[in-house]
């Protein structure tokens, strides 16, 4: 499905000026590059600070991620200038690349972390991953058993691997992208298809209907 969204407003003067300056030569380009890098770095620092509560990163590492993200976003922006079609302010379009780079850098950091387990199957963590109450195990034990069977019997090897990494081992999707030398869209689609299969399997076994769970 392709959606077309009309932009909020026409191109403002700044947004028209940025691509021209960055595509030019000489001092005007150098000044524009320096100014844009400053903006990107400010946004990158804000973004890593926003995400920091969930990261295994400390102050200097966070700033390093921000610097790397800003630098790589600048490279991406200057190489894709012709793709800017004025559908948003130039800075909004540019900041999007900062977000992508921050995500990629964080994913890479997680990948290098020695505690990360990609393939180990920690099925005992499944109840906790979804927030099932251990005190009510009698109610959900059969359901999660059926879910495990469906994972083993209905999913392809790749779907199973993605499920195990993301759901059981809590591996960030962007980290799995690196591990499998894939891309975010492909991994998401793999998990999307797996989710659809698992729901269908649980429905076929009578655990779930259109109106929700069928608890015994």
């Amino acid at each position: 499905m392709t959606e077309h969204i009309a932009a909020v407003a026409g191109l403002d003067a700044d947004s028209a000026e940025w691509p021209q300056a960055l595509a030019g030569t000489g001092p005007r380009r150098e000044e524009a590059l320096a100014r844009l890098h400053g903006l990107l770095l400010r946004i990158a620092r804000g973004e890593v600070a926003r995400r920091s509560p969930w990261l295994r990163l400390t102050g200097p590492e966070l700033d390093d991620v921000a610097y790397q993200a800003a630098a790589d976003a600048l490279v991406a922006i200057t190489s894709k200038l012709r793709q800017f079609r004025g559908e948003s302010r130039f800075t909004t379009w540019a900041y999007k690349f900062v977000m992508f780079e921050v995500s990629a850098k964080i994913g890479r950091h997680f990948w290098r972390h020695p505690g990360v387990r990609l393939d180990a199957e920690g099925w005992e963590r499944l109840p906790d991953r979804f927030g099932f109450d251990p005190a009510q195990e009698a109610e959900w034990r059969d359901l999660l058993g059926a879910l495990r069977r469906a994972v083993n019997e209905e999913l392809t090897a790749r779907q199973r691997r993605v499920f195990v990494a993301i759901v059981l081992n809590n591996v960030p999707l962007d980290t799995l992208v690196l591990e499998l030398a894939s891309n975010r869209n492909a991994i998401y689609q793999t998990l999307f298809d797996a989710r659809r299969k698992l729901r269908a399997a649980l429905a076929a076994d009578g655990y779930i209907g259109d109106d929700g769970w069928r608890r015994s």
Partner: protein
Amino acid sequence: MNGWSALDRFLRTDPRDVGCGEAMEMLHIYAELAAAGAPVDERCPGVAVHLRACGPCGEDFEGLLAAVRGQGSLTGTRAPRPHRL
């Protein structure tokens, strides 16, 4: 959210979901519309569905929205989720 509803949410897929590629392509336009208060759920339902379902894309959107609003970091948007399934 208890385990039942969390698992139900995880297993539900929406055929309108445009996927990461298209959502990332349109993220800057979507973020400006959202910042302007436009009814993005109605105007681009497939992107809206995707951003609610996909943790990484949703996180990129939250960050970009914060940047568009000129707040950059700590205020104005809800805190990021630790990890969406």
